[in-house]
């Protein structure tokens, strides 16, 4: 670990030299290789852009693949990242590094060009995801155990600020739904306490935290609209969602879609829906209904439900293609072998297909010509052409879960 930076810089040095020198250095490296010194491997840092790269989480083996979405191949396998169940990633603003948030509290920084783990800190006992600040200087992690948010310097991963999640009675709360917002802010939700908080880290030494209490029971996840204006937390303990308008000056969270499932038998929920990745088409938002085989369509002007689309199972992810023409939906256990595509204009399901058991995540290439789908039980990532809706590639991956492309580096809330 300690010699990693040295290896990396050596590799870049090598690639920048003239051909003659390169040949000489190449021979030198070859001899080193013969002598069995392993660091020569790292001379293979790539010199290319990272705009079409991404990472695939291999949840069970604690490893991450660095992938090329143009060639549709794996570039590197980075190992030793701990427990990656429910792991997620954000990218540095230059899109060279990925920050991986593991379940075991591990925060890992990966170099996409060199395919190596640059730094890893275990910052809590149990955590659930993170975010990177507007200016890219801070990485925040939301924790279950001990509950709260920790903020790190994006370069060194040194702790910058600690935001504990004590509720009014002094108890601690698990933190979910952490996102970045304009103005060097992080917004997050306290699961046990039922609160939304906005932390302003313009001065990291003095974080200013605004608290919205009594937002509803058991908020399990949250999202922010791509313009950074609306933060919405889904409630597990009640039918409805809690909304904070970050452009406004409100003191309380507003309840929307109150009682959307009223009068309907709630089904057992075998997997919590995810709210990350706001599915927005025009002014309409598409959201997963908790405990129902339905996607809800909401008008973002007045937050009234305008439609309820019956789907194959309980939705987990409802994600829009870039541009919002269609949304793609995957489902909870035991119906997690299927994906459905909804045309947002007609609100009709236009395609249903079965990639295989354990469809866990879907990620679109930046302009949406392809979607990558992780199929856990098939140990594969399948790539589909979104125009023809046909499968165009398959990559082997061990129990893949989250897929994250570097274009997220430049999007609020991702």
């Amino acid at each position, binding site marked *: 670990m300690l010699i990693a930076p040295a290896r990396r810089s050596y590799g870049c040095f090598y690639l920048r030299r003239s051909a003659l020198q390169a040949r000489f250095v190449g021979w030198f490296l070859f001899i080193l290789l013969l002598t069995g010194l392993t660091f020569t491997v790292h001379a293979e840092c790539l010199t290319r852009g990272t705009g079409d790269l991404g990472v695939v989480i291999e949840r*069970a083996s604690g490893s991450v693949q660095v992938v090329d979405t143009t060639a549709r191949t794996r570039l590197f396998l980075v190992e030793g990242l701990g*427990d990656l169940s429910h792991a997620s990633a954000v990218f540095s603003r230059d899109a060279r590094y990925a920050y991986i948030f593991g*379940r075991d509290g591990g925060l890992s920084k990966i170099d996409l060009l060199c395919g190596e783990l640059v730094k890893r800190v275990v910052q809590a006992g*149990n955590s659930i995801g993170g975010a990177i600040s507007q200016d890219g200087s801070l990485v925040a992690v939301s924790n*279950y155990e001990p509950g709260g948010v920790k903020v790190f310097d994006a370069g060194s991963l040194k702790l910058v600020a600690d935001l504990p999640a004590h509720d009014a009675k002094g108890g601690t709360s698990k933190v979910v739904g952490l996102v970045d917002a304009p103005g060097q802010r992080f917004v997050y939700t306290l699961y046990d306490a039922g609160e939304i908080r906005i932390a302003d880290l313009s001065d990291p030494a003095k974080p200013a935290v605004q608290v919205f209490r009594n937002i509803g029971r058991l908020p399990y996840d949250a999202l922010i609209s791509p313009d950074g204006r609306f933060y919405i937390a889904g409630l597990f303990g009640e039918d409805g969602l809690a909304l904070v308008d970050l452009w406004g000056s409100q003191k309380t969270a507003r309840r929307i879609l109150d009682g959307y499932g009223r009068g309907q038998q709630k089904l057992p*929920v*075998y997997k919590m829906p995810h709210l990350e990745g706001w599915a927005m088409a025009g002014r309409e938002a598409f959201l997963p209904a908790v405990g129902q085989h339905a996607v809800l369509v909401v008008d973002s002007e007045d937050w009234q439900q305008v439609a309820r689309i019956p789907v194959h199972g309980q939705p987990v992810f409802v994600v829009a293609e870039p541009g919002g023409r269609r949304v793609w939906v995957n489902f909870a256990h035991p119906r997690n072998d299927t994906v459905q595509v909804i045309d947002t204009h007609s609100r009709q399901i236009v395609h249903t297909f079965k990639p295989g058991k354990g469809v866990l995540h879907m990620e679109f290439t930046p302009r949406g010509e392809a979607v990558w789908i992780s199929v856990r039980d098939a140990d594969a990532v399948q790539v589909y052409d979104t125009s023809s809706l046909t499968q165009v590639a398959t990559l082997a991956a061990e129990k893949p879960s989250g897929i994250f492309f570097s274009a997220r580096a430049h999007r609020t809330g991702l």
Partner: protein
Amino acid sequence: MRKTSKLLFVLVMMVNLPALSAGVDAARQAELLHLLKHDCGSCHGMTRKGGLGPSLLPDKLRARPQALLVNTVLEGRPGTPMPPWRGLLSEQDVHWLVEALRQGKGL
């Protein structure tokens, strides 16, 4: 006589309690361990250290009565996200699963 046989039945049942899970064959056991890791794991952690749901490590379960644990899995826990697994899992499955959790099987 009747009373004795009833008592005998209860005694046999107690001794044979693990036998309730004996009907779970090797293939089903593998399926259940897979479910435990990947589906239960989404809330309780793949390493069972907990997440949104509590830890399921052996030392956390030691003090909990068998009936309570079996009942929690089968019927769920109202007021929490723990769903009832009855319908997807048989009682035999659940007895085997709880025993597997107690022994830290598959960790």
